[in-house]
């Protein structure tokens, strides 16, 4: 692992250079300050589509490049460094995976080219309560004339305002908490009975609550098997988890670089503060954690690419370790910068706030620690 192919190294370089030049963190700050809850810049999103990043997971027959998860992860890591805002992960990673893994030939032909050219933006609508618990899905889908009728609500859907389609987890049988009886549907966001409430969230990104009141969909809106959608959903989520872990690694790595830079330049008591052992040892510990996190993230991405048996285990490992490192790193980012770290003018706060939103996405550390233990049989 991490002996990247030439192509992967090239895309990584391209993403790094582009993010730094065209979408640096100052641009995210400007977006936040504009305060219009736009979520992302159209020009930024357009450039990503132009560079082909929306087709990284999609086979060539649908117009994609089929470069795989590791390549996608390398891009997301670079975007995470600059807090670049876009629907790339929810739509071109999670949404595209839902179509690829669960869609029929017709569904794939209909949606994948649109995901690639940006005319469709997909969002995963899974969580309902305060925490990520897919098996607790209550939103109901009843069989009705020629299709299904969906009723219920989804909470804090990422890119919920921008989305043109939702991948909705719904209960078609059984009771909340049961693994069986969950089904996935592809729902156009402009369907009658769909209402969305945009949320103003600490990381200034696009989240919305979704309310479905007797929303009718055709039978062909079903993705994958009726009542047997949870394994498919977990597979889609594992890709999202490995991908967001890569983004988190990037965000944390940038926080590390900012901190190391400061340790080498800030002087107090007549010395640069990085010469104090109390800080040097903490920096050494963070560096070690960063290296270990990278190992976990790359292993998870590669496991998905090679369809390895332990993909689920590694996805939880990657999300959990990336979460822990990002948590520790953003706290140290503030602490080691001292007073300047507390000011809004400095970027540390942007990273701290984004970190907590990323942590809550697709299951927090507690969720994945529990899942990891279950997968290991205890």
């Amino acid at each position, binding site marked *: 692992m991490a002996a990247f192919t030439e192509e992967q190294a090239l895309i990584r370089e391209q993403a790094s250079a582009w993010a730094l030049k065209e979408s640096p963190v100052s641009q995210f700050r400007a977006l936040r300050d504009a305060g219009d809850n736009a979520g992302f810049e159209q020009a930024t999103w357009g450039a990503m589509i132009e560079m082909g990043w929306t087709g990284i997971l999609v086979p060539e027959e649908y117009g994609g490049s089929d470069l795989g998860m590791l390549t996608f992860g390398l891009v997301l890591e670079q975007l995470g460094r600059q807090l670049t805002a876009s629907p790339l992960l929810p739509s071109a990673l999670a949404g595209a995976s839902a179509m690829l893994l669960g869609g029929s030939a017709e569904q794939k032909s209909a949606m994948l080219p649109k995901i690639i050219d940006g005319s469709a933006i997909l969002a995963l609508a899974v969580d309902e309560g305060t925490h990520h618990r897919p098996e607790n899905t209550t939103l109901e889908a009843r069989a009705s004339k020629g299709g299904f009728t969906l009723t219920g609500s989804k909470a804090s859907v990422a890119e919920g305002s921008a989305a043109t389609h939702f991948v909705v987890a719904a209960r078609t049988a059984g009771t909340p908490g049961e693994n069986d009886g969950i089904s996935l549907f592809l729902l156009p966001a402009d369907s009658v009975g769909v209402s969305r409430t945009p949320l103003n969230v600490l990381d200034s990104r696009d989240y919305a609550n979704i309310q479905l009141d007797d929303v009718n969909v055709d039978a062909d809106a079903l993705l994958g098997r009726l009542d047997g959608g949870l394994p498919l959903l977990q597979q889609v989520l594992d890709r999202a988890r490995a991908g967001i872990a890569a983004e988190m690694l990037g965000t944390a790595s940038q926080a590390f670089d900012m901190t*190391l830079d400061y340790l080498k330049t800030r002087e107090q008591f007549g010395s640069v503060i990085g010469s*104090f052992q109390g800080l040097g040892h903490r920096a050494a510990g963070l560096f070690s954690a960063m290296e270990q996190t990278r190992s976990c993230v790359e292993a998870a991405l590669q496991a998905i690419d090679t369809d390895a048996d332990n993909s689920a285990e590694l996805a939880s490992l990657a999300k959990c370790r990336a979460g822990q490192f990002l948590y520790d790193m953003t706290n140290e980012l503030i602490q080691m910068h001292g007073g300047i770290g507390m000011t809004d003018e400095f970027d540390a706060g942007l990273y701290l706030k984004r970190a907590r939103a990323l942590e809550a996405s697709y299951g927090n550390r507690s969720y994945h620690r529990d899942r990891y*233990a279950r997968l*290991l049989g205890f």
Partner: protein
Amino acid sequence: MSDGFATSVKAWVADNLPEALKGVDIGMYGPSSLEPEILEAFELWRRRLAEQGWGAPTWPEEYGGAGLAGAEAKIIAREIHAAGSMNPIPFLAGMGVTMVGPTLMEYGTEEQKTRHLPGMASGAVRWCLGLSEPNAGSDLASLATRAVQEGDHWILNGQKTWTSGADKSQWCGALVRTDPDAAKRNGISFLMLPMDQTSIETRPIRLIAGESPFCETFFNSAQAGADDMLGELNDGWSVIKRLLQHERASQTSAPPTSNKVEPLQELARNYIGLGPDGTLADSDLRSRLADHLMDAAAHTLTIGRIMAEAKGGNVEVSATASILKNSATDVAQDRSELLLEIMGNQGLGWEGAEFSGGELHSVREWLGTKAMSIYGGSYEVQKNIIAKNILGLPETTQKG
């Protein structure tokens, strides 16, 4: 490399491994604790391996090795392991094969190599290292053992400590002060000397876990030959730095010495049991155990990643040795602590038939792991190395 090599190794091991040795672990205290007939079988096994040059397979044949590539050496280790045994030579050679030998290969004269390497590679000559002193532990460069040249000999005076296996070794590599007036790292040399001298006294050290391989070693005008200095006079610090890199590498990549490491979650299930929901009955322990297993996985994945990157030629492996040494320590110490907790009262036994062999062993091993963050450059020294050499932070302004 070809599958043919693996096949021929497998066949050779099947033909040559004495039946009595299958599944026998030589243990950290060496062969002295083994039954006589097993000891005899070990000696036969050692000689057979040595004839193949497999005690140090990657060393050139003229020095007792087999001139093989690293990948082939790994196949040999793997096949011996798969046959339920281990290669005793690196243990019998003490610090020879893993540390002194590779350093000698770089710094030694042709004459030194021819004289010393074959004995290490065959496991016939055991080596110890005289490095630490009572007042020179983590701050090794402050060592005080003196060596003064008299005619064609060096005369050594001083005390070494933590000399692992000194009471059983035939040779010692000692770090000595040869120029007391130079700055402390510039007046040090590395001497090799035979241990069979009345002017050398060794006293075994009893540890918190009981018996140990460690000794205090006293040089009372001990002698080393003038041609037994490794590296240049007063350049011993660069020799030892290299040697310690070999030490860190051997600590982080050592193959398992025994086949029977039961997964911790398995032990937890057996001792504590599962609740009605299929999860461990102790939920607090369960989440800490999950965290530990993730740490262990992250450590293993990092070793794999660094090896893959090194193959691609884009990383300096020695730069990461400190990271891996500390994470290996964290994982081993946490595992031992958790294991004791999992065993409950049965994890408190010191001796006696009321406790299983595994339980008693775990207690001693738990105590033993406390040394991991002290030896081979303490946990804190490794962090200094990471901060300074990898992160480029300036030298600490604190004294020492």
